[in-house]
């Protein structure tokens, strides 16, 4: 059938004229580069086309990559979550420690204040007793009388 045939390419074909027109005249280096590019592309394509099809190996490689990717992803997620939990735990512990320290300080302050209050009371009582026992010399006979006759 006509449409199955390849386009004919020969030296008289307009392709060469087009080539020269596109390249803007004769440019040997550009022509060489395009020729090498074409030949390289053909060689690569032919080699790739005829290569043994190792689909199973590729699939295995891909599935390994997939598994590794998932494993790494899971590890990363687990690490992030555990890090977050650890961080939360640390913060809570620190908060508890602060509260405990504050409570301890408050308790110590209260104890100190209580001790101070007791010592003040003792001191005042001593002063009172001392003051009450000191009698002026002029009142001495009256004091002796009061001791002898407390009624």
């Amino acid at each position, binding site marked *: 059938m006509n449409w199955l045939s390849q386009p004919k390419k020969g030296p008289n074909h307009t392709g060469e004229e087009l080539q020269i027109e596109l390249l803007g005249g004769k440019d040997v280096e550009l022509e060489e580069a395009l020729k090498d590019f074409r030949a390289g592309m053909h060689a690569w394509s032919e080699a*790739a086309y005829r290569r043994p099809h190792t689909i199973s190996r590729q699939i295995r490689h891909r599935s390994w990559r997939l598994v590794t990717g998932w494993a790494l992803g899971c590890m990363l997620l687990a690490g992030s979550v555990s890090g977050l939990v650890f961080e939360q735990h640390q913060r809570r512990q620190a908060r508890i420690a602060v509260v405990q320290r504050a409570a301890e300080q408050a308790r110590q302050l209260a104890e100190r204040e209580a001790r101070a209050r007791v010592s003040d009371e003792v001191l005042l009582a001593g002063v009172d007793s001392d003051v009450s026992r000191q009698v002026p010399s002029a009142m001495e006979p009256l004091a002796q009388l009061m001791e002898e006759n407390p009624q």
Partner: protein
Amino acid sequence: MATAADIAAEEFTRVVERHRPQIFRFLLGSTRDVDLAETLTQECFLKAHRNWGSFRGESSAMTWLMRIAINLQKDHWRNRRMQFWRTTRTNSVDLDEASEWLPSGESSAEQKLLARERVKQVWASVKGLSERQRTVFLLRFVEEQELSEIAAATGLSEGTVKAHLSRAVARVRLELGGKR
């Protein structure tokens, strides 16, 4: 006695045998990914098989198949752009690897090195071309198609094809000139 369906199937088999390497080569040049080129080639012939009955032979089978292949690679790039997170999974070979394939005719090591450098520069330019420019460039300079064939395959006018080709060639020349 062979039925019409048998004849059509036989014709399609011949078309596949004849044009599959060329379609694969074009897709390989467009994607630089052997696996992807194979997949798209399969899809191209699957689509062609489904629509074989509606093919009237107004253009050549090659032009018809090439049009399907161009649309498939366009769809592929469009999908890839939409699914930007999948770009990391591309298997495209780098320019060094693509440039390693050289014509065996180069005799000396120096010539081979020069040829490799030239091919690498062309690949670098091709990589920088727009999708349309790359398509017409590959069809012209790898598949050696005529302007009319390229126009028919891409759905562009011959003038537009020529303009794209000129820009692509200018870019290659610039790349080659810059590295000289």
